[in-house]
């Protein structure tokens, strides 16, 4: 029951003759609708930015609400078969499907978000959202009164686990008494379920909510219950003005423009991109001055600067896992491979990570 919506945007500008004989077609596969005001919304903002930058050199299409199962193969193949030159698949569990279709269409370029499997015509790209989680964790550690933080997680994939760990490390550093309660919703997108999870966490004493799901339902539930929350993927302050502390924003536009340009120029090559705050792919929304003390905002801004210049790394040792095993030695930082495959909780988090 996936709905397929093709959007072929009009090409603006006046190209007389044919400076660009054939505009390159860029396709996107979305996990949710662009109207989620979260993950997919930000990819769509990126897509529009790409179009505005490249003008009539590209046209773009997207298919929304594509489930992360065999249907994804169908959707990706549909884009590939309809003459697209570059296809972005924007969710982790499109990994196998992207590679499968890429094998059938060696001349088409593919880009898979948040994954780690590449091929000669498949690149991967992701953003270092965990850098933002570190700042959220610091703020939560300082702001909580009940010392209970509620965390609504989606699926137990490295991306999400890394976020939880980065958040907890920063929060427990400034507040050793902090307890983090995690609910795995096993969905990216279900406002009702996300609200249920939020209310359950609030009912169990959480006074700050963190989410790694895509809608603003948790932040709205926080607003209603009078507790604090962090937005997800985009600035969600307008939906919960009295509880929104800040949000981690994903800025994809420049990357999409750069990759599409590479296809237009014929210079595209397979690579892995993992950019963070320093490159501007991860940005913190304005800190809520109504809720946060000025010196805490100052600390958060300083942390941003430190992360950008490399003097602060979210995973700086010593880091122990739940079993008490030393994962990152004192004075060292976790390498990209360890972070990209993280499937363990750091010491101090209760509960087992679902497999």
């Amino acid at each position, binding site marked *: *029951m996936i*709905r397929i*919506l093709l959007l072929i945007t009009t090409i603006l500008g006046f190209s007389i003759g044919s400076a660009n004989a054939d505009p390159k077609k860029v396709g996107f596969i979305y996990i*949710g*609708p662009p*109207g*989620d*005001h979260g993950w997919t919304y930000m990819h769509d903002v990126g897509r529009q930015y790409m179009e505005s930058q490249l003008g009539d050199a590209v046209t773009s299409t997207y298919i929304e*609400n594509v489930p992360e199962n065999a249907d994804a193969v169908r959707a990706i193949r549909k884009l590939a078969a309809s003459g697209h030159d570059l296809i972005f698949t924007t969710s982790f569990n499109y990994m196998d499907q992207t590679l499968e279709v890429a094998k059938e269409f060696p001349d088409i370029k593919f880009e898979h978000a948040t994954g780690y499997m590449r091929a000669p015509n498949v690149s991967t790209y992701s953003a270092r959202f965990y850098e933002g989680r570190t700042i959220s964790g610091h703020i939560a550690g300082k702001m909580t009164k009940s010392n209970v933080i*509620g965390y609504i997680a989606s699926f137990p994939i490295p991306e999400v686990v890394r976020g939880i760990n980065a958040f907890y490390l920063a929060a427990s550093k400034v507040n050793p008494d902090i307890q983090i*309660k*995690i*609910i*795995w*919703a*096993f*969905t990216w*997108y*279900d*406002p*009702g*379920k*996300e*609200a*249920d*999870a939020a*209310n*359950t*966490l609030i*009912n*169990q004493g959480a006074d700050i909510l963190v989410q790694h799901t895509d*809608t*603003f*339902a948790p932040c*709205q*539930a926080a607003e*209603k219950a009078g507790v604090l929350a962090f937005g997800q993927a985009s600035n969600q302050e*307008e*939906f919960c003005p009295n509880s929104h502390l800040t949000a981690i924003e994903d800025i994809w536009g420049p990357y999409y423009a750069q990759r599409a340009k590479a296809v237009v120029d014929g210079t595209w090559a397979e690579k892995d991109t993992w950019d963070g705050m320093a490159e501007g792919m991860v940005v913190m929304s304005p800190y809520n001055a109504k809720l946060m003390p000025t010196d805490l905002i100052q600390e958060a801004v300083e942390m941003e600067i430190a992360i950008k210049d490399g003097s602060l790394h979210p995973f700086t040792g010593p880091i122990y896992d739940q079993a008490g095993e030393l994962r990152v030695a004192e004075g060292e930082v976790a390498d990209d491979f360890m972070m990209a495959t993280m499937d363990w909780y750091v010491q101090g988090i*209760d*509960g*087992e990570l*679902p497999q």
Partner: protein
Amino acid sequence: MSIDVFIGVIQIILVATTPLVFAAIGELVTEKTGVLNLGVEGMMLVGAVTAFVTLVITGSYTLAFIVSLLSGVLMSGLFAYLVLILMSNQVATGLALTIFGIGLSSMIGKNYIGTPIQGLNPYFFVALSFLIVFLVSYFFYKTKLGLIFRAVGESHSSSHALGYSVIKVRLMGILFGGSMCALAGSYMSICYAPMWQENMTAGRGWIALALVVFATWKPGRILVGAYIFGGVSILQMNLQAWGVNFPGQFFNMAPYLATMIVLIIISSNRLRIKLSAPASLTIPFFKGR
């Protein structure tokens, strides 16, 4: 577990389960008259978006629910026209209605995503859902009209021969189902998660359809089934938050698994099938025959 936390859990279960009850009881009435409408999800979404948009424009909750119910009547009326008059295939038409509803609701709601509204207290609707289930049960088993409705679902030819209007009864069943689905949708966008987001029902329509089978077409069992499905899903969230290791994935498939088990049980015995599913379900009615 302190008493406050316990009450909190019960409240969350009631609020989360109510849309399932509304949608499932509506679909049950439709199926009892012998029509399978797979458009539940689509009608819920259209009901959700029309209620939300009306509320934003007029500021009136009453009007929001009226418009939403009307949208359910219109959507299911369209379905009724196709399957009763044009005698199209019910399964295909219902699926088409869902796909249509998803698209239509996204289109209507495009400019209203993220508009803030004041959510309504859900407990009135929780009570209403229990009342409706009771009334439907009373209607089917204690009134003459209810008997006629059931007869049409069992054997439309016999009912026709007795002089009852099969088309009229089925039309009423379909329209009631449509308005209940719209009510479920409007409850979601105005009380449960007060917002409009595309596809916000997230598969609850399909769970409602499964519930009707799970309940073996008995109104009272809709409540039992809905509260098992809803309760289990909220309880597992509580267990997770308490740090108890629990396979959350399991609960996403639990409603469907439970329905399959019920299907296996009722199909193991011919008599049980006869007693449960309306015999004329999905069979179109030709007046001439």
